[in-house]
């Protein structure tokens, strides 16, 4: 069965540090890839997505992610984090093997930023 792995359960950083959150998936075919974010007390919302084209995707709030097909990875990065980036981050993958194939979420990474 397809799966999505987020390696870090909880990441703690200081402001201005660089961030990289790992995401790997287990499907060899065409995929659509997503990162969602859930700020404290708010809805889950889309941070960025990759469907095709340039494997380096830029999203909101200075986040970017790189799709590396050979590594089945879609890691999330930000060069300099802010306290307001404290949130839970979820990677999601949609294996494109049928028009009805569902999106699969990773278990999430909690990011805490020390002011």
């Amino acid at each position, binding site marked *: 069965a397809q799966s999505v792995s987020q390696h870090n359960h909880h990441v703690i950083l200081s402001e201005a540090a660089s961030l990289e959150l790992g995401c790997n998936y287990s499907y060899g075919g065409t995929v*659509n890839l*997503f990162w*969602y974010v859930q700020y404290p007390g708010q*809805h*889950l*919302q*889309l941070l960025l*997505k990759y469907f095709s084209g340039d494997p380096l995707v830029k999203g909101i709030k200075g986040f970017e992610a790189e799709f590396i097909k050979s590594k089945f990875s879609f890691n999330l990065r930000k060069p300099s984090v802010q306290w307001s980036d404290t949130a839970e981050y*979820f990677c*999601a993958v*949609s294996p*494109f093997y049928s*028009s*009805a*194939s*569902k*999106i*699969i*979420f*990773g*278990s*999430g990474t909690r990011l805490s930023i020390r002011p």
Partner: protein
Amino acid sequence: GAGVSQSPSNKVTEKGKDVELRCDPISGHTALYWYRQSLGQGLEFLIYFQGNSAPDKSGLPSDRFSAERTGGSVSTLTIQRTQQEDSAVYLCASSWDSQETQYFGPGTRLLVL
């Protein structure tokens, strides 16, 4: 425009009672998902509706859980004979189709005493 709405926002019930949770997706969205998010846990997939296809129920944790989607729009998640371990936030999401961005509702926080 209007986003995904869920009701009630909070529900407190006694163990053994049945509960119904409602989701109103964004108009025109053909795909609808239910998830459960327990404290400190990730998103647990429950059930997925796509258009007129048979729903994917592979995530439902037991036969006490069921869901329906009437007329391709509103969905109701029913939990029968609730247990304390059912306490969680139940999230609904909808999208234009199964491959597209999901839009999440605010969730229903269920507490089973």
